[in-house]
């Protein structure tokens, strides 16, 4: 290929710890950033930007969940509820105290972090499936509370309308404005995650995942780091909830039910556990695949079925195709899309030579 990895000599710890040690990686990241910030918003219509916006929101949530499940090895089936905590905190702040989004957004995340750490307490004693059930309980308790405590939910309809976010007197309402707003949040989320993972905390997470007893023996405070993992992961979930609330203009608890938690777990499993890039791939895959399948069926389904039957067949076939494709991808590469991407990259790294 066009770049060579030999001759990259690291002479300092900083160089060794750099996020992108190779020049080509830095160029690639720069190019992607340029495309995302300049080319796409100019080239694409509102509809396509709205798709990217949905993906962006999912990326933040998937990243957060991957920090917990993929990096720390703790499972959570309660992330949908943590999102609702963030959403309702921000909505209440925005409506009652007229807080601007740059206050409501982090506070929503922080509230979710606190609740997430609380729900994570059982993780100190139980693991795996048992922890999954404990967090599931957390999901239901939070759902129930939001549904029934009108002080939180703002009435029996359990939905609070929030005003559009404003920045420097400019209202972020159109899909294009929302695109930049969400993109900045996604960039912050990714950079924060990447940096977290090469810090002391990130290494502790990985040590706990790989062998918690060994981690404890070498001096990692498991109690602390497990709760930190839950808190950080829930912070991301809370921020996802806030972003979603601002995106739609309403906090509604039915948007954060158990199926949402499952969807996000699906994203990180398909994308690749323990990988930042995998979270992004997973979020893109799970969000866009159903839409792409529908387009494909609308284009080709007419060849096989009558229009009236087609209307009934498309949604059902789409569900089946979605399930089958997930299975195919997982059978082809059990470690997810991220591994698939790395295999492709490694193949081309030495191309055209076999070794």
């Amino acid at each position, binding site marked *: 290929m066009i770049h060579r990895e030999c001759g990259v000599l690291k002479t300092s710890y900083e160089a060794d710890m750099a996020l992108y040690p190779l020049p080509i990686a830095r160029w690639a990241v720069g190019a992607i950033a340029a495309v995302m910030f300049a080319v796409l918003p100019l080239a694409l219509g509102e509809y396509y930007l709205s798709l990217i916006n949905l993906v962006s929101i999912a990326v933040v949530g998937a990243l957060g969940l991957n920090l917990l499940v993929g990096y720390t090895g703790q499972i959570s089936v309660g992330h949908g509820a943590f999102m609702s905590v963030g959403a309702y905190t921000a909505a209440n702040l925005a409506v009652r105290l007229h807080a601007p989004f740059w206050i409501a957004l982090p506070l929503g995340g922080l509230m979710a972090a606190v609740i997430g750490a609380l729900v994570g307490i059982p993780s100190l004693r139980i693991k795996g499936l048992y922890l999954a059930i404990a967090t599931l309980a957390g999901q239901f308790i939070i759902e129930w509370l939001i549904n029934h405590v009108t002080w939180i939910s703002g009435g*029996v309809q359990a*939905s609070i309308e929030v005003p559009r976010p404003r920045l420097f007197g400019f209202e972020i309402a159109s899909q294009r404005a929302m695109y930049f707003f969400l993109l900045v949040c996604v960039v912050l989320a990714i950079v924060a995650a990447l940096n977290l993972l090469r810090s002391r905390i990130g290494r502790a997470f990985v040590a706990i995942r790989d062998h918690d007893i060994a981690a404890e023996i070498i001096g990692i405070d498991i109690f602390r780091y497990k709760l930190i993992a839950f808190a950080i992961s829930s912070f991301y979930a809370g921020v996802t909830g806030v972003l979603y609330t601002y995106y739609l203009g*309403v906090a*509604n608890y039915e948007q954060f039910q158990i199926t949402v938690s499952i969807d996000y777990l699906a994203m990180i499993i398909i994308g690749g556990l323990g990988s930042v890039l995998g979270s992004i791939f997973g979020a893109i895959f799970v969000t866009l695949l159903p839409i792409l399948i529908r387009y494909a069926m609308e284009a*080709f389904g007419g060849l096989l079925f009558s229009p*009236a039957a087609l209307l009934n067949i498309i949604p*059902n076939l789409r569900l089946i195709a979605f399930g089958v494709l997930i299975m195919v*991808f997982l059978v082809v590469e059990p470690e997810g899309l991220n591994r698939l991407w790395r295999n492709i990259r490694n193949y081309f790294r030495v191309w055209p030579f076999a070794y």
Partner: protein
Amino acid sequence: MNGRFVIVLGLVVAAAVLAFPPAAAASHEIVIGLQCDRTGATQVVGVNLCPGYHDYVGLVNSKGGLNGHKIRVIEIDHEYKVPQGVEAYERHKKEGAVLISLYGTPHTYALTQKLTEDRIPGTSPGFGRADAADGTRYPYIFPIAATYWSQATAAVKFAGDQLKSLRGKKIAYLFYDNPAGREPIPVLEELAKREEFQLRLFAVPPPGVEMGAQILDIAQRYHADFVIAHLFGRSPSVSIKELRRIGYPLRKVVSFVWGAAEADIEAAGGYGVAEGYNCLEFAGVGENYPVLNEIREMYKKEGKEPPKEMASTVYYNRGVLIAAIHVEAIRNALKAKPDGRITGEDVKNGFERIKGFTLGGLVPPLEITPTDHEGGGWVQVWQVRGGKLVRETDWFKAYPEVIQAELKQAAMKKS
């Protein structure tokens, strides 16, 4: 390799599909966005309601459309998931839809702000937010059929008529424990105060297929004189079965509109089991309406059998009703702009001029105005009797002043 290939292929297909519509737009096609749920939590509704919608629009088009303009319905199934619903809306907007037929309470909440900003009217018949009946607060949301508040007042009125007097009577409210299920509670409490009856709430937690304890409570401890049920999905059939098993007379039960279809009765064990069960309906039930005969004629002319969905008359007729009101709104909009280049705003104004349009009894005598987007909140009660649904009352509405007070209060809270 696979992943990228699929995505690239998908994008190519998407681009190919999206390249076509501009050619068609030249003939002033009027586009309606139809959100549907044929696969999600409430698929029993979608599979029968959406064909009804398409058939009515097909009927209008087969007669040459509206002033020569054809109507194109773009249906998107959102599996009752909000992100898919948002995507569906954005796609409908991109295709130039002047009207969105929403489906699902959470979707209505999620899209209210967008619809208002984009000036595209959306309808939420029989679900969604009850306070959207106030057209001054939600100019682009149209319930067009009885909201949960109106259904609550109608159910209480019906109970009162059956019991002769409500004073001192015990009414049980059996509801699905989600925001939609809880929405009528303030109205019911207000009515309990006003009519001096006793009201007790019995919540059924999701997924709503387990309610033995609540039913036992209603029948044997509370000794309810009347039961008002507000359940969704599978749970109405469970409630019928459980009430029947315990020997509670089903003629003292009235269900809200989403627990009132043939499918619920069949799932409960058939018409024999459900004998006496009362159903609130916002569209006429049964096969004897001129418009349904016209649809059958249309199929016959094409040499086809009428679709089997027509047998499920409750949901099918609701689909016809929704489509018919939409078409009326567009017809009104076209009066102002006969060239067919109507916008969402025109359709909104078209909705607000709908009056005296009954479609041979299938549609209530609604009157939608700029302030009342519900059109009155009319319902009929149909009773399971002798193996079929029989009309028990004509179109009626009740306690409009209670709903007005509730709307006023909602508006106050907002500001």
